[in-house]
């Protein structure tokens, strides 16, 4: 993720981080308010377009889609067969009749589109915003304690993830996965996780000493100047807010604004 942010070059990389950050909650609220499948498709298409404009690899995006798809399907599979509606097909299971309805399918599709739209945009933001810019945003938007925790952990997160993956690979290469049984496997993975935390503690102690040695005063100094949104950026944010307002009004007040077409 950070590799693409630090080394990429596209119009999205050059966009003000404030614009990208402001659009994230707008998109979250928009997908929450919008219930129409076609509008959700449009929002998802726009997110995909944003991701593509950042010249980011599709393979990485498809890989990251695993989480939201699994979660939506896992939850929705219970509801899609119990939500009332017009039956699409029916089968019997253990003497009980179970039917898949049109509302059930619609529920899965809307949940999926909402999830994928936000995840696509969110990944695009993190993959096109450099660490220094994220540090600036975090220090301006979060309380100091949280911002410090966020930035320190973000800085070392991917390195830690690689370390844990390397240990797991080393275990597999030594046929550690042949160990069967709850007790054996539990102790094996507990040892790996426990060791990871011990290393985390030791690294944290070293980093804490290094920070104090360099005169850390409680906040990370922001070196890079982060540009504010330009006219185009403000226009995008204003458009997003207008869409949120229209979606909210049409959902909760009526079709006063949208009913004319």
């Amino acid at each position: 993720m950070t590799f693409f942010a630090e080394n990429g070059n596209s119009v999205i990389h050059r966009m003000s981080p404030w614009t990208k950050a402001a659009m994230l909650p707008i998109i979250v609220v928009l997908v929450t308010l919008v219930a129409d499948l076609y509008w959700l498709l449009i929002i998802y298409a726009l997110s995909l377009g944003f991701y593509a404009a950042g010249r980011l690899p599709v393979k990485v995006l498809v890989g990251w889609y695993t989480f939201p798809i699994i979660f939506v399907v896992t939850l929705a599979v219970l509801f899609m067969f119990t939500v009332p509606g017009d039956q699409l097909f029916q089968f019997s299971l253990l003497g009980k009749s179970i039917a898949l309805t049109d509302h059930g399918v619609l529920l899965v599709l809307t949940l999926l589109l909402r999830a994928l739209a936000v995840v696509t945009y969110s990944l695009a933001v993190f993959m096109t915003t450099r660490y220094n810019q994220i540090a600036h945003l975090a220090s301006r938007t979060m309380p100091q304690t949280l911002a410090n925790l966020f930035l320190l952990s973000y800085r070392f997160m991917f390195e830690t993830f690689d370390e844990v993956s390397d240990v797991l690979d080393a275990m597999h290469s030594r046929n550690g996965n042949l160990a069967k049984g709850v007790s054996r496997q539990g102790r094996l993975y507990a040892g790996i996780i426990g060791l990871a935390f011990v290393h985390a503690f030791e690294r944290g102690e070293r980093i804490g000493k290094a920070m104090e040695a360099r005169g850390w005063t409680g906040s990370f100094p922001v070196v890079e100047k982060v540009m504010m949104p330009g006219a185009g950026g403000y226009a995008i944010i204003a458009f997003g807010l207008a869409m949120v307002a229209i979606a909210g009004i049409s959902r909760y007040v009526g079709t006063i604004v949208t009913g004319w077409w």
Partner: protein
Amino acid sequence: MAHIHLEDGGLAIQWVVLWNIVAVLLLALAMYLFRRTKPSTRKLAIAAMCIAVGFAVFQIEIPVFGGLHVNLTPFFGIIVGPALGILCVFVINVFSAAVGHGGWGMIGANTIVNAVEVVIGYYLYRVLKVRLSQGRFESAFGATSVALAVSAVLVVLIVGISGIQGSNLSREATLNNLTVIAIADIVTGIAEGVLTGYIVSFIGRVRPDLLGDTEGIPEKGGKPVGAGTSV
């Protein structure tokens, strides 16, 4: 583990706002309690590294009991204390939302659930280990299992009260569906309890000082290290 795996749009906007407001109040309380102890740079750096490991472990599937996905929130409570633990799980939830592991709007609800796990994990571990003199494995297992069982019920309550947006099921039917998920969460919570017991036992053998704050282990010839001051 209990984590609301709903993505954005799963809950209606008013419930998203409500749970996020509750989470903000919880975080404010945690930050106030944490700052009151005048935390050192070392403690902050350690917590940050634990967040990094916690997030990495969160993404790993452990092939026990058919495949287990842990979030180690009660373990966070045991290792860094309740206040700092709440801040840590909030940051983990932010990172998770960024990669689609739960929605951005769900950060509030997930923080509430995970905060309950952290707090129960910490205090129950202390009761079992320090007051009742149980072993580390038994104490961590008991604390984790109970914490995750409580949070599984809390997940049902939060999602049951809020309802799933777009679902026209009655509240009763929704709760019935969620009960199935809660039972699965309680069962995996017991499995995570076993794993946490092994992890705490391992850390207790290798670096017992890391558990000193929670267990109130006295230094040589001195007062108990941070007994009762863990936040």
